[in-house]
């Protein structure tokens, strides 16, 4: 059947596998090809190997599940923070963190997430609201004492119309830089100030718009539609909450434990930009209402009282209570993520959080 010299097989055998996988040089490849043409045994071996290879190459690949991506990003964030902490310790510039004067235990987030297991990366040993306590929370520049409000006012802030300045960005940038040198973040106050300005203004100057998704329920006015309010904000102040898509990614129940006596839950949302390109994750941590509130600026929005603030690492958050549940809505993971530092205190980030709240409110409205 075969016309070739069988002894040739023994010289071909050592390189046959390399031939199959194209690991030979051109001339060697040709030599083996010539032999295979003539030798049915070697041809059978080759076709068998090639067939399996083709079969394997043709199958669809597994994609890493999103849960893995999220988990990994979270772990890397933690690695980063630990690395930074080590670096800070080494630089021996550490100062004792100032005690927050409002009496929440400083080493615990407001509802005492177990320190060893920060669910979505809340820095375990830092209060997540972390506004520099010596700063009035609406971001008056410290070098202008005439505008500084006393503590009493801080608890019950007045609308601060017209307080923002064109130099806001520079101020924020400076604050970011100084905060990276080891101090507590001071920018949050400024950002909160800005957001407060927008929001209180819309609240005080215009009666809250009460519209529902369902036109039939407009009349009774029982269902607030924050979406309209957001639109109002856009017209009024250029906050521009662009239409984003909010998707619920997953939900999870946190069991009660020694550090967390009450059960809670976390809802994770993905907020997709209009272009669909980026999808940031927003976490809504839920606990029974009535616990300690983080330090934030009270804001009326969609008929609800919200607290806006920034966590220690600069993460903007919105805290509110609804139907007996306290919500702490914030971004997942490290902050800022891919954005330049200068955009850290941008009110745009609050707009994303508002989108989630609006989404929830709309959902609730449709269920009623």
């Amino acid at each position, binding site marked *: 059947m075969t016309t070739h010299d069988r002894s040739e097989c023994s010289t071909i055998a050592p390189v046959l596998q*390399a031939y199959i996988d194209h690991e030979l040089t051109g001339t060697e490849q040709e030599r083996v090809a010539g032999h295979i043409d003539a030798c049915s045994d070697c041809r*059978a071996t080759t076709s068998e190997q090639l067939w*399996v*290879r*083709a*079969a394997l*190459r*043709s199958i669809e690949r597994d994609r*890493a599940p999103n849960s893995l991506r999220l988990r*990994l990003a979270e772990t890397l964030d933690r690695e980063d923070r630990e690395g930074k902490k080590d670096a800070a310790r080494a630089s021996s510039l550490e100062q004792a963190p100032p005690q927050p004067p409002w009496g929440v235990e400083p080493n615990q987030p407001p509802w005492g997430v177990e320190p060893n297991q920060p669910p979505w990366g809340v820095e375990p040993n830092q209060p997540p609201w972390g506004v520099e306590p010596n700063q009035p929370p609406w971001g008056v520049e410290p070098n202008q004492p005439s505008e500084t409000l006393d503590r009493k006012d801080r608890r019950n802030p007045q609308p601060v119309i017209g307080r923002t300045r064109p130099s806001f960005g520079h101020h924020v940038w400076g604050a970011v830089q100084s905060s990276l040198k080891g101090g507590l973040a001071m920018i949050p106050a400024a950002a909160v100030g800005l957001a407060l300005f927008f929001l209180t203004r819309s609240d005080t100057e215009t009666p809250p718009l009460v519209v529902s998704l369902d036109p039939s329920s407009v009349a009774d006015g029982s269902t607030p539609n924050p979406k309209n309010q957001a639109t109002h904000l856009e017209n009024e102040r250029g906050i521009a909450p662009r239409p984003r898509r909010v998707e619920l990614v997953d939900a999870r129940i946190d069991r009660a434990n020694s550090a967390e006596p009450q059960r809670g839950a976390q809802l994770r949302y993905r907020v997709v930009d209009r272009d669909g390109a980026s999808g940031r994750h927003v976490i809504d941590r839920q606990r029974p209402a009535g616990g300690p509130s983080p330090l934030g600026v009270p804001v009326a929005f969609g008929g609800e009282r919200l607290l806006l603030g920034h966590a220690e690492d600069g993460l903007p958050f919105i805290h509110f209570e609804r139907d007996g549940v306290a919500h702490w809505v914030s971004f997942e993971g490290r902050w800022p993520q891919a954005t330049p530092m200068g955009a850290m205190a941008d009110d745009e980030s609050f707009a994303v959080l508002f989108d989630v709240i609006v989404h929830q409110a709309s959902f609730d409205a449709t269920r009623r």
Partner: protein
Amino acid sequence: MSTARDTTRAEFEQLALPQLDAMYGVALRLTRNPAEAEDLVQDAMVRAYRFWNTFKQGTSVKAWLFTILRNTFINGYHQSNRRRSARADLASQLPSLGSQAALGQASAPTGGPDAMMSERVTRERIVTALEAIPEDYRMAVILADLEGLAYKEIAEIMDCPIGTVMSRLHRGRRLLYKLLLDHAVELGWIERETSNENAKTIDFATYRNRGSA
């Protein structure tokens, strides 16, 4: 201080994270369990992140990551009972896969596997077969055929000579061929005549069934 870390993170996200799917794919075939695969990839990636400074820029990040993946697997996920169960799996696979030949219709060979491979059944069949072969063979075949790596890279990842890579590949594919043969015949990828001899070597039940069919 934070700048160096940020650079590391940026590099890692740019170079290593795009390999996550590939890492998961390999991990899934190694562990044969999605939850374990996730854990394995997570561990390996965190390890890679910690030791990112040991990665030589310009070399294959894929090979580097796979090396870490394999080491992590061997160190943490590789208990002796798993090895035994792999053998048991292989033993149990052979008859069940082989018996499919009883239903095989001899038909004209088509243009090769590509045409049929989109079928999920086929994919599952291949994956099942792949997971049934011994680990060293499996690893070599995965790296070569699923990931398209060269002998040299596979040798580095598996920490063995290139000759060993070749023999593992050869044997691995040969086993897979036997495991998949009947399915291939059934779908008409391979002519029955060429397959008969091989079929006989793997499963006598096939022949008994054929007689009664």
